């Protein structure tokens, strides 16, 4: 499967037509604009429709706003109690199901990660309002645990019945005096996907946490790492590399994070953005309020890791750091290259499809390129047009009804804490030298001509794509995993990593090479037919023999 022979058998327009053929006309029209055949155009990419409503009844990969807010952004912080205000399910499903690993020390430090907290709303709360119960639950959390912070999350019915969770949070914060209580209006029906939840989380983290600490950070090369969630220990590996380079990561938003990290994030001198989709709002706000410039980085892929480290070193501009980074890269790349040489003969020419998240469908193409594999189709689950086409399209994005109701907070330069990290001339010089600030070029430019870029891929299209294009590997999430594998095509989860990882950084790349080698070269997929199914003809024997 998926060798050069099968590659020439399909034609993108034909595939697109086949994906759309079975849909009712209205659905087909809408989906046609979310399925794009990548064409290399002069300095621009074709337009794709993204961040639009999911079609009811079409089995989507997407989740909800609550999942994006509580599950993704706020979930990984170990010392904040996440209290979910709603019926029990929302809290239950987000309980330890994302693999953001946490190092909260052997004992003593606060670690609420293995806990789920909920008000478990009952019908009486729906009828008479849930504010009293929420207040009582916050009180009980405080009495039992005395955490630094309590974050309250709204689920669907909370918004419908009009509970004012922010008022309750304010009241309790004042009452306690030593515990920050804040709330997120992240009802599941808001927006069109988890993306709205990221935005809501970004706003509240910035409003209630960032810059609240008095602790001075005097470290030399201070950065924030934004949009890294420590799935399978990715963040641990990135931190290991940064530390080796002498770079201090003040705050990761939000893998393996703590209250204090967020609170001191305003003291960093550079923000490095991994997942552009989920966190670019915070990056922008940190710049506006505190004067911290941001660059896009990518620690997925050994070469991308090296490139990102060089960008950070270039920003700080000190020879000592630049040399240190080069030494670290040279040291680390030895093992990477050995692993790569070993695996590439078995992976070269194989094909992959990636449908995941808001950045991974892009980032992981770097790792596949290192394996000399070809990404023949990719797309995001909840991204916006800028994640496909690049940030230059942002001014032209239409704000529709579903985006309009997601709050945009106005941030201004902090009169005391705003401090430009570089002069305008310095920034211009860096730009001149190739270090781009506030820039993300998106997924499309990296994809080859004639490949298919598909937004919000659904189960039917996934099944069709696999049937028509026969990739050697399909990457998505848990819901997609087993329907793909039933067809005999190996599937790699790029949300949870199938209990594997880390895949970030240098050691992560080595892990990933081995994992992909395992998947695309496994014998497992060769046993589909029993001998009698492969050779059904019978050879007769005579009974008297």
């Amino acid at each position: 499967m998926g060798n050069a022979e099968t590659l020439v058998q399909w034609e993108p327009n034909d595939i697109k037509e086949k994906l759309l053929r079975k849909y009712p006309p209205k659905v087909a029209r809408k989906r046609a604009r979310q399925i794009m055949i990548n064409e290399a155009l002069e300095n621009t990419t074709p337009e794709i429709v993204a961040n639009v409503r999911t079609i009811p009844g079409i089995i989507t990969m997407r989740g909800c706003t609550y999942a994006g807010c509580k599950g993704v952004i706020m979930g990984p912080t170990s010392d904040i109690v996440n209290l979910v205000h709603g019926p029990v399910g929302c809290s239950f499903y987000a309980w330890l199901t994302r693999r953001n690993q946490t190092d909260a020390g052997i004992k003593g430090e606060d670690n609420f990660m293995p806990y789920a907290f909920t008000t478990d709303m009952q019908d009486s709360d729906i009828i008479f309002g849930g504010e009293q119960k929420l207040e009582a639950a916050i009180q009980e959390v405080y009495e039992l645990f005395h955490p630094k912070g309590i974050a309250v999350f709204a689920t669907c019915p909370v918004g419908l019945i009009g509970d004012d969770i922010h008022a309750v949070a304010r009241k309790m914060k004042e009452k306690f005096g030593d515990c920050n209580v804040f709330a997120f209006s992240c009802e599941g029906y808001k927006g069109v996907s988890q993306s709205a939840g990221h935005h809501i989380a970004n706003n509240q983290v910035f409003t209630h946490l960032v810059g609240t600490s008095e602790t001075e950070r005097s470290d030399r090369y201070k950065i924030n790492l934004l949009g890294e969630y420590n799935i399978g220990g990715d963040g641990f590996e990135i931190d290991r590399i940064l530390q080796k380079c002498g770079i201090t990561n003040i705050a990761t938003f939000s893998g393996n994070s703590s209250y204090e990290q967020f609170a001191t994030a305003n003291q960093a001198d550079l923000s490095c953005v991994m997942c552009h989709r989920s966190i670019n709002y915070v990056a922008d706000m940190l710049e506006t309020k505190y004067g911290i410039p941001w660059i896009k980085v990518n620690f997925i892929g050994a070469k991308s890791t090296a490139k990102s480290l060089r960008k950070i070193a270039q920003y700080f501009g000190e020879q000592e750091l630049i040399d240190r980074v080069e030494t670290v890269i040279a040291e680390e790349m030895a093992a990477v290259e050995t692993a790569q040489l070993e695996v590439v003969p078995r992976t070269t020419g194989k094909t992959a499809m990636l449908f995941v998240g808001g950045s991974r469908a892009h980032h992981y193409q770097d790792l596949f390129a290192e394996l000399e594999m070809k990404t023949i189709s990719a797309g995001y689950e909840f991204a916006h047009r800028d994640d496909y086409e690049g940030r230059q399209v942002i001014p032209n994005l239409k704000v529709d009804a579903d985006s309009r109701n997601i709050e945009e907070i106005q941030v201004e330069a902090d009169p005391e804490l705003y401090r430009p990290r570089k002069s305008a001339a310095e920034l211009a010089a860096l730009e001149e030298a190739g270090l781009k600030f506030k820039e993300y070029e998106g997924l499309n430019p990296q994809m080859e001509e004639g490949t298919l870029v598909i937004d919000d891929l659904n189960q039917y299209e996934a099944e069709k794509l696999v049937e028509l294009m026969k990739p050697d590997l399909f990457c998505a999430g848990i819901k997609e995993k087993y329907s793909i594998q039933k067809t005999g095509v190996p599937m790699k989860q790029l949300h949870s990593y199938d209990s594997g990882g880390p895949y970030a950084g240098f050691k992560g790349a080595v892990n990933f090479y081995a994992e992909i080698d395992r998947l695309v070269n496994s014998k497992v997929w060769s046993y589909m037919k029993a001998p009698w199914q492969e050779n059904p003809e019978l050879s007769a024997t005579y009974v008297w023999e």
Partner: protein
Amino acid sequence: MLLRHTPKEVAERKALTINPAKTCQPIGAMYASLGIRGCLPHSHGSQGCCAYHRSALTRHYKEPVSAATSSFTEGASVFGGQANLVQAIDNIFTVYEPEVIAVHTTCLSETIGDDLPQIFDKARKDNKVPPGKTLLGAPTPSYVGSHVTGFSNMVKAMAALAEPGEQKNGKVNIIPGWVEPSDMAELKRLAELIGVAVTMFPDTSGVLNAPLSGEYRMFPDGGTPIEEIRQSGAALGTLALGEYCSADAARLLDTKCKVPCSVLDMPFGLQATDRFIDALRVLAGSSVPDEVAVERGRLLDLISDMHQYFYGRKVALVGDPDQLIAMTEFLVSIDMCPIHIVTGTPGKKFEKRIRELTEGMGREVNVKAKGDMFLLHQWIKNEPVDLFMGNSYCKYIARDEDIPLVRWGFPILDRQGHQHFPTVGYMGGLRILEKILNALLDRKDRDDEETTFELVL
């Protein structure tokens, strides 16, 4: 310590649930719907509900779980979800071509008061339901009961499809409750051994333990055909396994179609299986073959052979009411001592029943319905146990307190086998005991001093 903030002292909580021992109704409805042949479950609410339920069921079964959603937006939440659901029904029948769509509601659609029968009428009037196809709906508000209630409500909605038969069809309805696909297959095997023709619904065997063959089928061969469910109104009688999961459906069949019902415990362990087999035999007028007695004897043999390791061992249990009732009886029957028993599902009857079952044990028993795993952990800290049985979340407590754990219940996210090997019936009882013994004896082997470490146990 993973659960380092759990104090030993139990303080009463009025508003806060920590580490729930239940989840919400819709996932139960989704699981039940998968037990209908050619059925696509549909979640009428925000798309996150559907995503969470599919993910949880997929992680538990390592199988594809297809389900659709109405994908409510803020507008739909204000103006009602009718347009979304009608469009969804059209898209589903056009694209996926199921025989049945089983719709369950969510806290969202319940709070705004969407009326499923009225929306179904609208869909039919708009010709969105092809001839011969079935729409089925169950209200499953997440703020009432638990996942068990949702399962029960969807099974009741299935029973509501049944039509009274003028002539009895000679079959027995078995409503198995929320058990694994392997368990449902085992119940059918037992019925076949006894020579009783049964209609079992729901039936997830063949659906959530499907083979790998190189072909993906959204609707595998398993599941109860909708026609059989319709004809269940002409059965000789119904055996409902588990008060909480199955009784409502059975009673509806009784009132609506005059099919007499018996509500039994789920057949986990010796005595509950005895009662199930006996009830089945009496209802169908069949005699029980020796094979069944031999299976029973095997279970009894293992109990007597290894009784010394069971005797007096203290156990903590967490799970769903029907399963806990049957397991408590089983453990007490082999002289084990279940002393801490928690379900998150509300129900006064549950606590009463557990008290009755453990009465003769001569030990103080902690039991709570609408409890949580935080409380259970506190009880364990105050009175340690030798064995812990429950879902995968228990492993955090088990690790901190160093207690052997047998995974049993829902969800099991970190071990395999539940979808393939039954725990109901006599053979299932053997499997439960094998797991208990392995856990206890592995611990003994780990803990014994070199001087007392033994080859033969």
